[in-house]
């Protein structure tokens, strides 16, 4: 396959550009910014970019101010000539088979054409193999995946579409989607676990609620039973209480009536008794004079006076008697007194004579005189006394007479009074008076009591009352008998009443509780069915969990074994690649390195140094130039492998900038050798390649 010519319109810096290429090495020379890279890009776009879908992405590569661009590539292959036209404005892309006059216009037909003719239909793969750009020698490792797929396809003879990478990626994606953790976007297992946790919580909560509901239901049964028992006992006890109350009431009424009856009866009896007493009292004083109190008082007064007068009389009589005696005793005093007076004067003369004659005799005579004086005084005094006594006697005698007279008057008065009542003596009178008085008093008392007992009513009324009470009593007795005639112990009645009260309160409370529980049960909602729903969801959740867990295991095993199968295949691929690269490497390094081995996963490599007799790791020991040499070899080997019998063109865009003169020389020896089979388009700003060029095109 060879590019004969390229025409570019409005692409990059080219408004119009045409170039023709020949077989072998075409060195396209130009200074920096001359358009070398634009030309490489235009060729790649002309080959690989879909003009329909990639128009927008290519827009910035259009010439400034242009709406679109066109690329034409004329190709010649063993089976004919082809014109590749791409119009990035209209989207038209067509391959004209000049030999068969056929056109290929779809992306699929383009890809098929490129696959058939150059063995590469993918721009990335092209970049990794046939298109070596400056500083992009290592693009081969960037495209390791695609290369591996392609190599697998080559190794497996193209019998199957190589989808292992996609399948493994897809399985890994599925595994990740199943098992990935993280709160933001967790995998299905985590989501199921979270859901299971929530469901478990809801199930436990609902189960608890249901248990509570069941407990409430049980409680309701208990409460109903308590309520029934309470109501039953309450009814029974209330009935009994009513009976007892009636009995007790009858009993009380009976007692009261009995008391009332007894009271009335006793009053009535007392009245009768009182009446009898009054009659008896009246009989007692019947015929007895009714003595005026004044008369009694007069009698008392007269008797007192009489007693006084009698006592006075007695005293006066005694006094009279005494006085008489006294008077009689002092009868001779007068004579005696006369004699004395004579004697006195005699003595007095004697005294005076004696005093004059003899003092002693005078003294004795004086004594006699004094005695005589005393004696005379005494006699005088007795005479006076006698006179007084006589006067007193007269007075007393007069008093005696008066007393006698008063006594007589008093007796007369007394007798008048006694006569008035035909009574014999005052004692009798007083007795009668006392008797009548006391009896009257008793009658009065009895009458008062009687009046009091009657209470202002007359006896008939009282009797009527008594009769009424007696009648009531009979009725109540009858009623009492009708309620069993029970004797109700007030304590027992109180106990019963308290019990009824308690039962009533219990009934109210229990009814309230009943209503509350019933309400709670009513509002408890669809708990049981809701629980079933949650159980079903949980069961479903677990089944999904099992399913995804199982799927995960299946995916993992599948991915792992596809990987194993792939590794088995890659082993052969790697061996092929290593052989091919080793051959080129030996040439390009002048046998400094003659073997290479690739990492099966990333195409990283190590090379064998015969000098060192050891493998050298690319990253650690090799210079950049050597690494580029190895990658160049790998690219050439890959191209050889990928292209097979097909001989595509090779584009080298100043690839050897890191090579020294020897390496460049060696590389060009190899390139020159390759250019026998492959057309080479070498873009450079150097003249160093002119000597190896079959054509030199100056930009």
């Amino acid at each position: 396959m060879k590019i004969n010519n390229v025409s570019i319109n409005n692409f990059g810096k080219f408004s119009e550009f045409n170039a023709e290429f020949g077989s072998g090495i075409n060195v396209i020379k130009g200074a920096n910014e001359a358009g070398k890279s634009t030309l490489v890009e235009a060729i790649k776009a002309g080959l690989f970019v879909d003009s329909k879908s990639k128009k927008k992405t290519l827009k910035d590569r259009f010439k400034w101010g242009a709406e679109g661009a066109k690329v034409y590539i004329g190709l010649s292959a063993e089976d004919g000539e082809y014109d590749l036209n791409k119009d990035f404005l209209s989207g038209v892309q067509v391959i004209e088979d000049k030999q068969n006059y056929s056109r290929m216009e779809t992306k699929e037909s383009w890809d098929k054409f490129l696959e058939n003719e150059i063995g590469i239909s993918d721009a990335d793969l092209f970049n990794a193999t046939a298109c070596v750009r400056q500083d992009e020698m290592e693009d081969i490792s960037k495209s390791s995946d695609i290369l591996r797929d392609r190599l697998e396809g080559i190794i497996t003879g193209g019998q199957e579409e190589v989808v292992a990478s996609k399948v493994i990626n897809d399985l890994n994606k599925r595994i990740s989607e199943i098992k990935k953790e993280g709160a933001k976007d967790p995998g299905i297992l985590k989501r199921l676990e979270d859901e299971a946790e929530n469901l478990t919580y809801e199930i436990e909560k609902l189960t608890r609620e249901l248990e509570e509901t069941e407990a409430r239901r049980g409680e309701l049964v208990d409460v109903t039973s308590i309520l029934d028992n309470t109501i039953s006992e309450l009814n029974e006890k209330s009935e009994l209480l009513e009976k007892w109350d009636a009995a007790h009431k009858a009993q009380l009424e009976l007692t009261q009536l009995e008391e009332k009856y007894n009271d009335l009866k006793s009053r009535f009896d007392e009245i009768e008794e009182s009446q009898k007493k009054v009659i008896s009292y009246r009989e007692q004083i019947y015929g007895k004079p009714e003595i005026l109190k004044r008369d009694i008082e007069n009698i008392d007064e007269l008797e007192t006076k009489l007693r006084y007068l009698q006592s006075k009389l007695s005293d006066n009589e005694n006094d009279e008697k005494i006085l008489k005696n006294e008077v009689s005793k002092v009868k001779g005093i007068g004579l005696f007194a006369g004699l004395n007076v004579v004697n006195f004067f005699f003595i007095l003369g004697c005294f005076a004579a004696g005093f004059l004659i003899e003092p002693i005799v005078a003294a004795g005579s004086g004594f006699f005189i004094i005695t005589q004086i005393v004696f005379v005084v005494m006699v005088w005094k007795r005479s006076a006394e006698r006179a007084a006594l006589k006067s007193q006697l007269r007075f007393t005698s007069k008093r005696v007479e008066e007393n006698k007279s008063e006594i007589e008057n008093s007796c007369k008065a007394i007798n008048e009074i006694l006569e008035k009542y035909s009574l014999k003596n005052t004692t009798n009178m007083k007795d009668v008076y006392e008797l009548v008085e006391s009896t009257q008093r008793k009658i009065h008392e009895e009458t008062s009591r009687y009046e009091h007992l009657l209470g202002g009513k007359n006896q008939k009324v009282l009797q009527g009352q008594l009769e009424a009470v007696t009648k009531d009593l009979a009725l109540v007795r009858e009623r009492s008998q009708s309620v069993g005639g029970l004797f109700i112990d007030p304590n027992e009645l109180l106990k019963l009443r308290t019990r009824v009260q308690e039962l009533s309160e219990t009934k109210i409370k229990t009814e309230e509780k009943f209503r509350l529980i019933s309400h709670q049960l009513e509002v408890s909602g669809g708990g049981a069915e809701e629980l079933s729903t949650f159980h079903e969801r949980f069961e479903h959740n677990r089944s999904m969990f099992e399913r995804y867990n199982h799927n995960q295991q299946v995916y993992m095993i599948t991915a792992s074994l596809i990987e194993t199968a792939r590794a088995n295949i890659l082993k052969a691929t790697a061996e092929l690649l290593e052989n091919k690269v080793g051959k080129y490497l030996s040439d390009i390094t002048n046998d400094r390195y003659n073997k290479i081995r690739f990492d099966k996963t990333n195409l990283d490599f190590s090379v064998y140094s015969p000098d060192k007799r050891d493998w050298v790791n690319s990253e650690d020991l090799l210079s950049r130039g050597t690494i580029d040499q190895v990658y160049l070899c790998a690219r050439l080997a890959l191209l050889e492998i990928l292209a097979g019998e097909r001989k595509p063109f090779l584009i080298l865009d100043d690839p050897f900038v890191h090579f020294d003169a020897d390496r460049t020389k060696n590389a060009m020896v190899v390139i020159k050798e390759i250019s026998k089979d492959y057309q080479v388009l070498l873009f450079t700003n150097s003249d160093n390649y002119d000597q190896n060029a079959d054509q030199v095109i100056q930009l």
Partner: protein
Amino acid sequence: MPQIIHTADIHLGMKFSGLGRTGKLLRTHLKNAFSSIVDITIEKNADCLVIAGDLFDSNQISDSTVNFVIGEITRLQTIPVIIIPGTHDPSSNPIWRSFKEKELPANLHLILSDEHIPLTFSEIDTTFWVKPNQESNLLESPIPELKDKSLSKYHIAIAHGSLAVPGIESQDGYTFQHEEISQAGFDYVALGHWHSVKQLNELNAYYCGTPEQSRFGLKDCGKILSVDVNDSGVNIEQIQTGKTQWHDLTLSTEVMKSPGDIIKELGTYTGDTSLVRCVIEGGQIHGVNFDADILKDELEEGFAYIGITDKTIADDIKMLLANYTAVTITGQFVQVMTERIENASPDMKDILEESLKLGCRLLIGNKSDKQL
């Protein structure tokens, strides 16, 4: 001549295992079926509605469902409703306790014990005889004895239990012999327990089936019986009440050549009340990355429930190895997998076989899962 509506096994509040979120919907359908029964009873002006056991599925019934049942029975006004306990809701079931706590309509005759038996309705000259199931599984016959024929002209037995199948010893409770019914002398025996409509050997004894299907694999259900008892026997009319359709499908890849064929076939069963359990069997569908889980997820919206089980078998390994030699990745994969399967434990073998199937499907099938 009495006309009764005979139903049983409504299983209100039933828990549906393995159907996920559909359970809630199905419980609503059970309630709807009960409402339909009441509607039909009113519409037909039947003399009595007989529920021959298992009105409730368990004791795990909410108060709202109990209230719903009472409300529906109340709608029947004076039409008597006779409910007997079944094996799921025997007399000992606490649900009846909560039932009794409610203010029950006068037309409801809940027969939980022998107390109210027999039940005679003079206006239809009929006596109902019941031997209520006390526990969920007692080894005794549920068929009552017709003790007094003079009570009325017609005598109907209501029972919940299984007819003993000759030659098969059953540990199930409440089984009865054919002779018990043939010799009992009832004009009609209203049976419950079997979920399909069934007449017992030309006797006037019928299982009415469940008024709403509640599991896969049942036939002749979702109905109630309208029974006219007359001097010459009984006239039975089956009336559809069930709204759900349960489809057990087996699709073979020999007929279903592509997932499109499967989707097209399943599409004929779509509906809000449609439940589908589909098994896909046969060889794998070639050239297609067929995934039953993805198919189920995509179709789910069109059904009340859909379950798809992929029981297709991995294509013949020799054929695979012939077409995809060991030089290919698929060939290598099959070879490695086959070796593993040969040496695997039984549990692991299943997983490995599934992995083999999946790997082949993905490697040979189209590049995209979405290309069903």
